[in-house]
């Protein structure tokens, strides 16, 4: 371990600069730029095949990028890992046969310069009942808790989790996030990937949506909903209602059971126009949820949504200022 040289102070926990990685003809990560300031909890959200795992492997230094640069705390990823700044939980495997959970964790802890005491790890990952168990005889959810313990036992500054709750049931998932929030409260930087929208919505300070290896949206969950999804305005109509589709803000209209469902990019303008036309009957305005935003953002059909959504720079998180995503070139 080389702990002699301090890392460049103030450099972000994670920094990917126009990284690209192809596997054969498939471009898994395509010019991805991502900066995560220290102390932030960031969710990497995207459907399967969006490039989440590849992005994580790049930033951990597990695979070299074809082009671009990855850095953790201003260091090459391998160096940051060697200094014990990083703990990670990859998606598959990572567990070893014929040892007990206790033996495994004391080994992993022992490789770090200043690990957490075992009882703290036990509390954080809720593995008190598993310490004496053989690692290869755990259930999926138990194994996942042990993997999480391995990621945090070295007391790293950055914790990276690739789909951490994939094998967990609802209850285990809730407990898992409780543990993770404990870490975030200690000021750790946390980056996790998920395809569960509500997890990103509830757990992260910032959400980065990936699609086809690029950032397609970047911001708080509220900002993403605002930027991407369309508010639904519903009114009761009779007769020919096709003129409603031409109202300001309306991008899409559907009539079901005498109700017009107007999907609007500017619900205020839409409602005002309805009022001016005297068409406000049983008005309902339903804000977008993250699910809608996600579908809109990752959909490959450009007709129902603007082909590109600007990656918003969250005003509440000033340190992300240089985040610029190449959003002008959707290849759909």
């Amino acid at each position, binding site marked *: 371990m080389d702990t002699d040289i301090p890392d460049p102070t103030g450099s972000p926990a994670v920094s990917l600069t126009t990284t690209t990685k192809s596997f054969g003809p498939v471009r898994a990560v395509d010019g991805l730029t991502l900066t995560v300031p220290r102390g932030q909890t960031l969710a990497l959200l995207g459907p399967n095949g969006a490039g989440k795992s590849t992005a994580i492997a790049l930033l951990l230094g597990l695979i070299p990028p074809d082009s671009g640069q990855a850095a953790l705390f201003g260091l090459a990823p391998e160096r940051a890992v060697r200094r014990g700044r990083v703990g990670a939980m990859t998606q598959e495997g990572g567990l070893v046969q014929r040892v007990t959970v206790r033996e495994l964790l004391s*080994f992993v802890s022992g490789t770090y310069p200043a690990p957490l005491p075992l009882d703290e790890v036990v509390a954080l990952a809720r593995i008190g009942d598993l310490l004496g168990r053989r690692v290869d005889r755990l259930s999926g959810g138990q194994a996942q808790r042990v993997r999480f313990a391995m990621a945090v036992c070295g007391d790293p500054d950055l914790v990276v989790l690739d789909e951490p709750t994939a094998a967990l049931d609802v209850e285990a998932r809730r407990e898992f996030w409780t543990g993770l929030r404990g870490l975030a409260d200690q000021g750790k930087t946390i980056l996790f990937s998920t395809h569960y929208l509500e997890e990103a919505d509830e757990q992260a300070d910032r959400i980065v949506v990936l699609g086809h290896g690029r950032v397609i949206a970047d911001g708080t969950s509220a900002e993403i909903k605002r930027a991407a999804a369309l508010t639904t305005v519903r009114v009761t109509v009779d007769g020919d209602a096709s003129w409603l589709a031409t109202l300001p803000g309306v991008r899409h209209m559907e009539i079901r059971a005498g109700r017009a469902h107007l999907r609007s990019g500017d619900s205020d303008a839409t409602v005002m126009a309805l009022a001016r036309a005297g068409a406000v009957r049983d008005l309902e305005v339903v804000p977008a949820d993250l699910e809608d935003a996600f579908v809109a953002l990752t959909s490959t059909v450009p007709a129902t949504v603007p082909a590109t959504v600007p990656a918003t720079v969250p005003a509440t998180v000033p340190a992300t200022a240089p985040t610029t995503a190449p959003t002008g070139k959707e290849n759909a």
Partner: protein
Amino acid sequence: MWGYVRLELTRTLRDGGYVIFAVVMPVVMYVIFTNLGLAPGDRHDAAIYVMVSMAAYGALGGAFNNGSGIAEDRATGWLRQLRLTPLTPVQVVTGKVLTGVVGVVPSIAAVLLAGVLVNHVTLPPQRWLAIIVLLWAGTVPFSLLGLGNGYRLSGQTAAVANVATMLTLSIVGGLWIPAETFPSWLRAIADWTPSNSYAGLSWRVAFGDAPTLRQAAILVAWLLVFAAYAMYGYRRAGRRA
């Protein structure tokens, strides 16, 4: 890194395949062979000769088993997880080689103990010391060959390749049946195997002769070949892991 060696040794000792094939089987075969009188010379000489053969056979089993473990570790993602700890790749490889080096000790010790306790082998202390050192240090080429297979091949294939290599080297190298009894063509092959040279060093010392330069040279030559092979396998595995 010592923590890694300790973890790996714990895993090895709990590996049923290792215990049976590298420790129990050589002892059982030793006791059976010597009591059937299959080896040349008088009874005490046979007990010494086969003791060295079976200790070498067991040590080969331990060395190759360690290599198969690498393929298993790759398949389960454990090697990848190790890359996410502060351990350096050099520490991981060194740790695995050390595990192999220490892991052959029980195999050698078990057969030598059986020699003393069951077959009442007596040797001058300096000869005991010399064969222990030669049997132990001489496993390094086989550890490297096993690791090369483990890095280069996938889990199940690596295990099969390692067992096949281990058995071939044991039989052709004259560890099961003395090479002196082979037909001349097979004998000629045996003379060039690393396993025959490896056991040959200790056979000669056990009977009070100095090892031949030829035996030492052949073993060192194979050491270099297998080291290069292990390095090649490691580099290849590194590109995929």
